[in-house]
């Protein structure tokens, strides 16, 4: 580096003095703007988790008086703490969206204590009352959208077998698998869904292998819960199977195979949060919602989806929005024959029991461990 020819000691002396004054406000000219920082764990054009958040960030860029700074591929280590601090110190960010689940503990919590005047909004719903008050956590009940997708998948499958490529057997993922399966069973009570866990959030090679082996085993409609569904969607389409998407709308990747999908709707939520923030309103520390609150949405149905399927799916969707329909309503039996939700028990979306889900419902071929 050019810098290496300058004495590091002199640089240190000079910069230490500068550092005492905390930041170098490069952006003083924009002091009236609110700077919002977005941090992604992967690349923001991954057709998945990160792109969904980037779409939310893009919605903010259209708002007046809002400046958005973004950084992608930031690992869940001290790196993310430094990225947050850098956004605060060098960019003057006052509202941060560290979007990856693994950023929360210890990194977001640590920074929130250190910068009490900065607001941190973390995606994942992990906030508890003992955590700092300048941290908020939000999440969407995307299993509702998965359930509607499942109805479509159940209608479209000719083989009576669906495939699901999943990352890890954790409650969030299991809830999506179960909701999707239960949706499909509304259309075809005998339908089976086979699940393969890849073991991690971004494993394109394993995801491709899983897609192929599910299709080889007879699945003709596939969906997934991994960070970037691109591999699954493209491979399934290439093999002639149909797909339901996840995170964002992937219909451009497979226009002839894309039935529908469960999407995040951060482009609605983030402007809502930023409006609260700039008007001085308090953003709730714990914020959740589903289709009704517009935190999630269902992709527009593909042209191949027949009217009967659309009608049933729309009916379920309307019920979920109206709050009259409950996905996890007893009796629910798991795939080992054990009753996990008793008859007469109705677990609505906010039920904390659902957060601990550790089973796969009847009709799912696969095991959690």
């Amino acid at each position: 580096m050019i810098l290496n020819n300058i004495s590091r000691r002199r640089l240190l002396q000079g910069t230490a003095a500068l550092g005492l004054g905390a930041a170098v406000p490069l952006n003083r000219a924009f002091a009236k703007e609110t700077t919002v920082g977005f941090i992604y764990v992967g690349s923001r054009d991954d057709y998945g988790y990160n792109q969904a958040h980037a779409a939310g960030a893009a919605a903010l860029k259209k708002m007046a008086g809002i400046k958005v700074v973004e950084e992608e591929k930031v690992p869940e280590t001290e790196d993310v703490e430094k990225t947050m601090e850098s956004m605060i110190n060098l960019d003057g960010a006052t509202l941060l969206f560290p979007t990856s689940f693994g950023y929360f503990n210890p990194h977001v919590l640590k920074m929130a204590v250190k910068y009490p005047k900065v607001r941190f909004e973390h995606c994942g719903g992990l906030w508890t009352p003992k955590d700092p008050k300048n941290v908020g956590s939000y999440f969407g009940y995307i299993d509702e959208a998965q359930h509607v997708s499942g109805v479509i998948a159940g209608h479209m499958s000719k083989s009576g077998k669906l495939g699901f490529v999943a990352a890890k057997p954790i409650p969030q993922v299991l809830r999506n698998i179960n909701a999707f399966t239960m949706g499909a069973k509304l259309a075809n009570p005998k339908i089976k869904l086979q699940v393969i866990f890849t073991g991690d959030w971004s494993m394109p090679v394993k995801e491709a292998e899983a897609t192929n082996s599910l299709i080889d085993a007879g699945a003709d409609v596939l969906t997934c819960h991994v960070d970037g569904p691109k591999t699954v969607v493209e491979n399934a389409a290439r093999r002639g199977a149909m797909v339901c998407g996840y995170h964002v709308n992937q219909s451009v990747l497979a226009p002839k195979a894309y039935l529908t999908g469960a999407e995040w709707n951060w482009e609605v939520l983030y402007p809502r949060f930023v409006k609260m923030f700039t008007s001085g309103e308090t953003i709730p520390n714990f914020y959740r919602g589903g289709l009704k609150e517009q935190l999630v949405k269902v992709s527009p149905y593909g042209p191949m989806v027949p009217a009967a399927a659309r009608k049933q799916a729309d009916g379920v969707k309307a019920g979920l929005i109206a709050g009259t329909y409950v996905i996890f309503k007893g009796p629910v039996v798991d795939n080992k024959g054990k009753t996990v939700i008793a008859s007469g028990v109705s677990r609505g979306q906010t039920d904390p029991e659902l957060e601990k889900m550790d089973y796969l419902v009847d009709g799912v071929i696969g095991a959690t461990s």
Partner: protein
Amino acid sequence: MKADVGAPVAPTGLGQIVRAPSYGRGIGGAGEYIVIPALALVGSLVLFGIFVALFGKNPLDLYFYMYQGAFGTWFSWQNTLIRAAPLILTALCTALPAQLGMVIIGGEGALLVGALAATSAALVMQWAPPIVVDLAMAAAGMIGGGLWIMLSGALRHYRGVNETISSLLLVYIALAILNFLVEGPMRDPASLNKPSTHSIGAANMIGNIPGTEVHWGFVFGIIAAVLSYILVYHTVFGFAARVAGGNIRAAKVVGLSVGKLVLIICFLAGAAAGLAGMFEVAAVQGRANANLAAGYGFAGILVAFLARQNPLAVIPVAILLGGIGASGGLLQRRLGLPDASVLVLQGMIFVMVLASDTLYGRWGFLKGKTS
């Protein structure tokens, strides 16, 4: 911080005997070790500037932001040093076996095993005072990581298995073990959607160097690098290792026990990476989970090669790469460059430094008095 990237240090055992003869005699020609790597760096920066200009960005802005993000403020300096801390230790995992002519690229595995061992030690010793817990963690981390790389060394020595391949494959085994333990037997049931072990306890966390936000791993990295340097260049053991690295048959003929050298050096190498893992747990994460596999072990390989496998040169090179990493964020935010652009720069530096190897001994005016 006097040392620069091309610090005037003695050449490695590898180069001394295997490469060009003039290399070994070049101890007096320290100039080469500053001028050539510096030129390679300047060259890669210029190339990167052209690359960035192709995307319609001003290269001068680029250089300014790189300086700003890496060394421009006290905050940036700390950001750089924090990133350098694990790299010094993981680089030693490649640089030490290189003295024996071995190419070990599995530092990531040793880091993960070290982190797991350290976490386990902390979890079973919850009753002990923090200083004891931290010492036990360091010992467990070093032993865990050390045994892991020693496995590669043993496979190489006793079974003739290529150590590069075995150490790389052991990374995936280590990752699988980590995932298995974190998601299974060692899982904290409360960590629902982010499988993790129990916390080692706030009291057992190792703090930062007073007055900074840089954790103690940086200091231990420097100590480990200096000790490694002394071991390699100023002890009989290190001399024996370099002889074996130069010509293993000759070493055997003169009665050196090569097997012992391989096992000990590999253990020390793994111990360094294991210590890096211990600091990731004890100073940063506070628990073991998938966050530990952040690629420090792989970045360490790059550092070791750029440092020409010299344990002392590892320190400034790690700081340089830490700086590039620290400035990466600012490049993304100010210039709108994708994250991968930092990888492009790293790749350019790597290729340029390796390619510049051919220049050694070619320029008479740099050679010094011995040649």
